[in-house]
Every structure is written in C-alpha cells, then in structure tokens.
C-alpha cells in the first residue's frame, strides 16, 4: 500500500511539474560563435521581463537553420558569409558582425602574416615556422570542421584554400583557442569575440584584428551574424530581436568583442 502511495505521489508530482509552465518561452539555436552573446543578452532580457524564458542552444549554424525551419527553435543563429539554400525560406536579420582572428601561441615570435602566407600555411605549402620568420619548428595547422560557419567564411575570404590533410580539426572556437594555447607550434582562427590573453592574435597584411580596424573596414576577415526566423518575426520573437538591435545591447556586444550590425 505504501508503495502505491509513493508511486501515486510521484506521478502526480511529475504531472504537475510537467504542466507547470505558464511562461512564454523563446528558443534560440545555432552558431556557437554567437551563443555566448545570445546567452548574455537573454539573461539581461529575462531580468527585465521575468515572465519570459529564453533558452539558448549551440549546435552550429546548420542546426540553427534546421531548427528554425522545423520549428524546434523560433530563432536560428547562423554566422555564414553566404546563407545556404536551406535558409532561403527563412527571414534573416543581421544582428552583429564578427571578425575572424588568426591566432598563434603567445610564445610564437611571429606577429604578422600576409594573406598569401596565410593561404600557404593552411594549404600546407609552408610547413615550418622558419620559412616565415619563426623558429625551426613544424607548423601545426588547426582548423574547424567542414561545414562550420567560421571555416567557410574564413576560406571564402582568404580564397584558394585547400586545407592541408594533416590539419588538426576542432569543432568549436573555444576548443581551437585551447588547442593553440596548449601547443606552441600551432596556428588557428577563432571568432574575434572570444580572443583572450591565452593566445596571440596575428596582424593580417599588417592590420591588427581589433574592433576599431574592423569598423574602419581595414581588417578583411569579417562575417555577418544572422538571426533566422520562419516568416517575419512577430510577438515575443520580434520584441527580442528588436531588443538585440537597441543601441544599449549593440554597445554591450561591442564591448565584448563583436561588432554592431551597422
């Protein structure tokens, strides 16, 4: 009898728990580059609007497009230079721009690479640091996985890249940063937004990857960040996107390393 009672209580609890959502909920999913910013913005937004729940998921740009298409998320996040065909049906809003920083280990003497050198390094034509003015050490190229928004943007802007086979592949900005921070001979690229002191950002064609140089249109490795919605955004979704585009939030994004939409 006691067992039945416990079971009964449990089931009741589950049902109440399961139905206990009176809140409006908006889900964002996709680009890992924009994920941390989205989470921070969502926190701020929820503080101001306590009866709304905003959930942010990673997964990558493709997940963003798929889940916006399928309705798994109301807003998809994508960070591609050019959106693929699957995203044709979706309404896209540019909410920010992002620089792609080329990074090496802080112990590396190299400060600057030309676009040609960068291309040759990633193609495996240059495979020792001494060829471009560093120490006599082999280069470990670190790149993103095929399909990644950061990678396709990087390759599209640098042009002519056929990634060297032995390149180490990592599947997020953070893991590339950690890999480069751990390996003195490695080179990689990450979203400008998550650059930190553990790695060193290189100048490309003598232009440093800073917010200023990107805004001034001097730094060339830049791609837009899209929010994708099915149909024109409306209701809570529209409110949230509008919120991201307010000056206050755009300023916050900028402080953390992303670039404003305009």
């Amino acid at each position, binding site marked *: 009898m006691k067992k039945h009672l416990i079971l009964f209580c449990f089931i009741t609890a589950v049902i109440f728990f399961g139905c206990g959502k009176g809140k409006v909920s908006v889900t964002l999913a996709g680009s890992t580059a924009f994920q941390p910013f989205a989470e921070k913005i969502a926190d701020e937004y929820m503080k101001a609007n306590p009866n709304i729940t905003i*959930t942010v*998921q990673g997964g990558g740009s493709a997940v963003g497009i798929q889940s916006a298409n*399928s309705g*798994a998320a109301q807003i998809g996040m994508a960070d591609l230079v050019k959106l693929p065909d699957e995203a044709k049906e979706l309404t896209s809003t540019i909410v920010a721009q992002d620089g792609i920083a080329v990074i090496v280990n802080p112990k590396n003497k190299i400060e600057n690479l030309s676009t040609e050198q960068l291309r040759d390094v990633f193609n495996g034509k240059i495979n020792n640091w001494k060829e471009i003015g560093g120490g006599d050490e082999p280069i470990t190229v670190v790149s993103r996985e095929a399909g990644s928004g950061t990678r396709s943007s990087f390759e599209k802007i640098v042009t002519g890249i056929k990634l060297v086979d032995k390149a180490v592949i990592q599947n997020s900005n953070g893991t590339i940063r*950690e890999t480069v921070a751990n390996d003195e001979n490695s080179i990689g690229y990450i979203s400008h937004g998550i650059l930190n002191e553990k790695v060193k950002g290189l100048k490309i064609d003598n232009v440093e990857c800073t917010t200023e140089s990107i805004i001034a249109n001097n730094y060339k490795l830049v791609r837009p960040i899209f929010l994708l919605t099915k149909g024109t955004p409306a209701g809570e979704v529209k409110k949230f996107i509008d919120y991201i585009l307010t000056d206050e939030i755009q300023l916050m994004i900028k402080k953390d390393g992303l670039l404003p939409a305009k």
Partner: protein
Amino acid sequence: MRVSPKYTQIGAVTILGAATAFTVAILIFIIIFVLEKGLPVLSFNFLFTNPSDMGRSGGILPILIGTVLLPVLAIIVAAPLGICTSVYLVEFTLESRVTRLIRFGTDCLAGVPSIIFGLFGFIFFVTILGMGWSIMSGGLSLALMILPTIIRTSEEAIRAVPKAYREVSFSLGASRWQTVRKVVLPNALPGVVTGVVLGIGRSIEETAVVIFTAGSSLLIPTSLFDSTRTMAVHFYILAREGLSMENAYGTAASLIIAVLIVNLTAYWMMHRFIAKRN
C-alpha cells in the same frame, strides 16, 4: 637448459603483479587527478548556487538538477520496459529463431555508439515530435540508449535462475506470473540491479546524446519540456571552451562523487536485500 618451475613462477608473478600495479596506479591517478583539483572548489555554495557568466563563476545548481532529472527519467522509462521485455522473452516465449534474432539485435544496439542515439533523438524527439531540446527528449533518448544494456543484463540474470525453482513453484500451483514475481525476479535481482546501475552510470556520464537532445541551457528547469545541462556536458563545455578550469574540475569532482554514490548505494541495497533473505 630448463628453467626451474619455481623461477618461472616467481618471474610470472613479478610481471603480472607489475602490470596489475601499473593498471591500478593509472586508474587511481585519474581519480586523484580530478579530485585533487576539484575538491577544493567543491562546497555547499558551489553545489547550490546558480552559475553566472556561462559558468565562469558561480555554482552548478541547475546542472545538479539536470544531472539528477535526466538519468532518473531515463531509468524510470527504461528499467520497467527493459525488465518486462526480458521477462517476456525468457519466461513467456520459447527459444526460437526470433528470440535469437532479438537477442542479437539488442546486443548490436548495446554496442552502437551513443552518438547514433543522439542523432535519432535529435531528429525524432526534438524535431519530429516537437519536444525541443528538453529534459523529456534527453531522458527518452538516454532511455533508448540504455535499454539494450538493461534488457541483456536482466535477461542473463533471469536465465541464470535455476530451472528447478520454477518447476517447484509451478508444482505448488503457481501461475507463470506468480512464479516470475515470487521466485524468478527476487533471485535475478542482483543481476537486474547491476544492469540498472550500469544504465544509470551510462546516462550520467553521457555527453554527446545530452548535447544533441537536452541542449545545454544553464537555467533551472521549470518543466519537463525545458532544456537542461548535465555535469558531464557542463564539464565538457567548461574545459573545452576554456571558460573556467576551476569550475570544470569542481564539476568533474562532483560527477565522480555522484557516480560513486550511485554505485555504492546500489551495492549496499543489494547486499541488504540478500542478507535479509538468508
């Protein structure tokens, strides 16, 4: 010249002993490595406060909740399903080509990489059924992942119950179900529990499936249809993205302690049960 058996014995014991010591040492090193760096971070505060700034600072309260909810949901779904299935296969069907095929199939699925269950869960629960990244999707995907293991271990345990017990029970006028309930299951219990504990362990430590199906939200879930994050995922994200090594180790230490508690509780309960019966 033939070496005296006495010396080969000494040689063998030395080599085997050294290999064992090395093995145990490595395994202990892993535990100590994590606990040494993680325990200083662990505190009541760490466990029971909200994380802030993506987990860079603050505690792991929502993650703790997620780590309890997901495996619990998975086991609530998978254990009855798995145990009933194995009871049905062993006690209510005759050994045939079909049961052998089913056994082979569950064996294969028990060995299928978890990532495949993650893909399935993502397409089926998250997308097709529209549950989104949620405790529900995650729990159900984990349940499917551990189901084959539970079916196979409890099947073995049930099969191992002596046939004579069943005969005696039938001869005393018990029905098949009464025999199962009173004689077969109590005797198969240790094996069945092992399977369930394995299942809990696997769902606590799983990372890929949870990321694909339950998402990685850091908010405290308010319903079964909210996204959540488990300790394994939290550790993965913190450590891999280099957000905060301190909190990563703290999470890892809590994770190992959680696994320890689950296993020890199961062992203790089983011994108590066996002791009570004898």
